[in-house]
């Protein structure tokens, strides 16, 4: 039985494992190591995964889901999902418990189900490559993923039939892969510019103990945004030539987006890109319209300067919260495909005053670390030269709503996990027999300016004067960064616990059902039974 580390990415995923003390990366069916995070559905219930699904982004954009990581664990009405909707060619609507659900050709799918399908496929790739069964995994997430995003990632793993040993922060995984801090003390910045997210994390590493000092970033900034910037350039050129804006035509837009991604890669290695894109759109008399273009790297750099600037600003903010100066960082690690863009490297070098480390493949380094941690957890790291201890922190402050529209903080940002804190609250009205405890994540004093996570209600309180009833609220964050909330009625001495109803999450029974369905599908290798 093998355990794997999975970097479940916005654009690509990577699977790795430790074999005989060495990290090995599971190849895809086309001799590469990146597994595109794409799942496509056909009306007869068949599914296409990853490399086999990529082409279907153009052939069948409505039924081909990509960038699911941008949606996972977020309520349908959240700003992030609404922003993503504008750009995504497939259809989403609001399902049970405020979830965003994908409207597939046969039925609707929740986002953890989509990611679960992909994870199941990745598991099968690993099983074939290793000739061994895989039933447990460490899955990585961006350090600034919130509680519901982490939970949803665990749900996706469960749906794929995986025991999720740990949800590991991507930057911590990267630092682990570099094997830094062996017999020395270092301060490291991990600059992770991936397909869909950006984050920066400061770690203190000392004799195999990795402590996250601070972390921050932007869950909605990534290589996709660079592609979009290039798409705009291409679309403007096309519009100038043909008088048609390809952004209004879903198929044309998809084709240009794929071209934009290729142009971006080319511009990382060459000062200019030329091309001739055929059949982008159809003209008024049915003729195919092409685009011949010539883009200099400098034009691209002007278009993305603002985006890269946002990452440097995030570095500044994170260093400030760790009370450090850029010059106090001993090593900068580059993670994520977007760090191949020369301007990104140059700006990072300028800011930190030292060339960043790029010796490990920025696309694979996170999966490496995840594989090492999986080995550490499942097999007590026996085959590894050293056993790292990863000390993670809470990515955001956690609190609850109190009267007057305020948020009362219970756990601070950047405190080491596991952590447990209790605060005592009271009722706000005479004869109030129930309290509503709304949980939020964020640093603002105003509740509405934070991210709501969910709520629980404590009922059957003793009727008494306002303020006479005390309610103990306990927050516990485990080593996965997942929050558990307990509310206790202090006045009657009775202990009552309630589970948080997490907004935008699948229920336990929904997850189990989905896992069963997937197990059936894998066992029979057939399209799943249509629902009645």
């Amino acid at each position, binding site marked *: 039985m093998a355990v794997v580390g999975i970097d479940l990415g916005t654009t690509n995923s990577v699977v790795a494992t430790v074999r005989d003390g060495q990290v090995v990366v599971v190849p895809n069916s086309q001799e590469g190591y990146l597994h595109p995070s794409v799942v496509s559905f056909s009306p007869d219930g068949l599914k296409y995964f990853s490399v086999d699904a990529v082409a279907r982004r153009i052939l069948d954009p409505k039924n081909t889901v990509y960038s699911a990581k941008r949606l996972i664990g977020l309520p349908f009405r959240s700003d992030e999902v609404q922003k993503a909707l504008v750009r995504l060619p497939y259809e989403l609507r609001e399902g049970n418990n405020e979830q965003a659900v994908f409207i597939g050709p046969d039925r609707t799918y929740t986002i953890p189900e989509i990611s679960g399908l992909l994870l199941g496929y990745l598991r099968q790739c690993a099983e074939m490559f290793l000739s061994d069964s895989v039933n447990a995994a460490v899955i990585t997430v961006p350090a600034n993923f919130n509680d519901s995003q982490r939970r949803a990632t665990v749900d996706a793993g469960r749906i794929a039939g995986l025991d999720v040993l740990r949800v590991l922060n991507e930057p911590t995984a990267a630092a682990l892969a570099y094997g830094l801090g062996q017999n020395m003390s270092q301060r490291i910045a991990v600059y992770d510019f991936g397909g869909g997210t950006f984050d920066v994390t400061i770690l203190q590493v000392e004799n195999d103990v990795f402590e996250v000092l601070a972390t921050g970033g932007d869950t909605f900034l990534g290589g996709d945004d660079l592609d979009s910037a290039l798409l705009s350039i291409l679309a403007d050129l096309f519009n100038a030539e043909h008088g048609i804006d390809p952004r209004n035509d879903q198929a044309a837009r998809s084709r240009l987006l794929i071209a934009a991604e290729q142009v971006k890669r080319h511009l990382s290695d060459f000062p200019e890109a030329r091309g001739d894109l055929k059949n982008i759109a159809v003209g008024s008399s049915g003729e195919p319209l092409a685009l011949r273009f010539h883009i200099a790297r400098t034009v691209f750099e002007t278009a993305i300067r603002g985006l890269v600037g946002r990452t440097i600003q995030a570095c500044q903010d994170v260093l400030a919260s760790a009370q450090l100066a850029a010059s106090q960082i001993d090593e900068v690690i580059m993670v994520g495909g977007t760090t191949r863009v020369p301007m990104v490297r140059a700006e990072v070098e300028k800011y930190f005053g030292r060339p960043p480390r790029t010796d490990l493949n920025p696309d694979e380094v996170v999966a490496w670390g995840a594989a090492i941690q999986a080995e550490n957890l499942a097999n007590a790291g026996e085959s590894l030269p050293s056993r790292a201890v990863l000390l993670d922190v809470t990515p955001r402050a956690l609190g609850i709503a109190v009267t007057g529209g305020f948020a009362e903080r219970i756990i601070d940002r950047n405190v080491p996990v*596991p952590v447990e804190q209790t605060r005592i*609250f009271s009722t706000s009205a005479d004869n109030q027999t*129930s309290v509503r405890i709304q949980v939020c994540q964020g640093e603002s004093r105003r509740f509405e300016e934070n991210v709501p996570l969910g709520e629980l209600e404590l009922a059957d309180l003793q009727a008494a004067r306002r303020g006479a009833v005390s309610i103990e609220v306990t927050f516990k964050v485990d080593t996965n960064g997942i929050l558990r909330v307990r509310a206790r009625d202090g006045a009657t001495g009775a202990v009552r616990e309630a589970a948080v109803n997490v907004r935008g999450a699948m229920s336990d029974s929904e997850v189990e059902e989905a896992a069963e369905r997937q197990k059936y599908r894998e066992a029979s290798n057939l399209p799943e039974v249509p629902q009645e």
Partner: protein
Amino acid sequence: MAGMSSEQLAAFVRQIFPRLDQLSYYDLLGVPSGSDQAVVRTAFYRLAADLHPDRHHTLADRELKEQLEMIYARVCEGYQVLTKPDKRAAYERALNQGKKRLTTTDRDSRGLQNPEDSIKHPEAKKFFRLGMISLGRKDWKGAVMSFSFARTYEPSSALVAQKLSEAQAALGKPGGAGGAPPKTP
């Protein structure tokens, strides 16, 4: 670092856990009270290397594992407090008052939200309260009736709708409909 055997770990937990609340952060981390940040950090790293839950992922004894996690969480708390100057100053004051742990003890002046605050219409609020009382008595039929009335006064309230469907679900359950409403006092 030598690392702990499982017997050593069990002995350690049995010794520390029962008196966790009597130990100061200095006791827990094993450092003298005047120690500077670097000393505290080194001590914390050494403890983390032995006690971190990841080190004991495969531990079968659930109770031992849970107690260990609580000890480790307190160690983390101690590290956090002793390395943040403002928190450490507050902790020194708490220690002088005989407290071993830095907690926010003063009861918060603000109360928790009353669920019914979201209901605007006074009649809707009145029936909502009646419905909640019925729910508390497991009088599902009465609850459905009251929440239905509340809804006629304020159809837009999500809370009323939610409670109504809760009551309806309870009423629909086997045994739910048969349960006679308790006698009114």
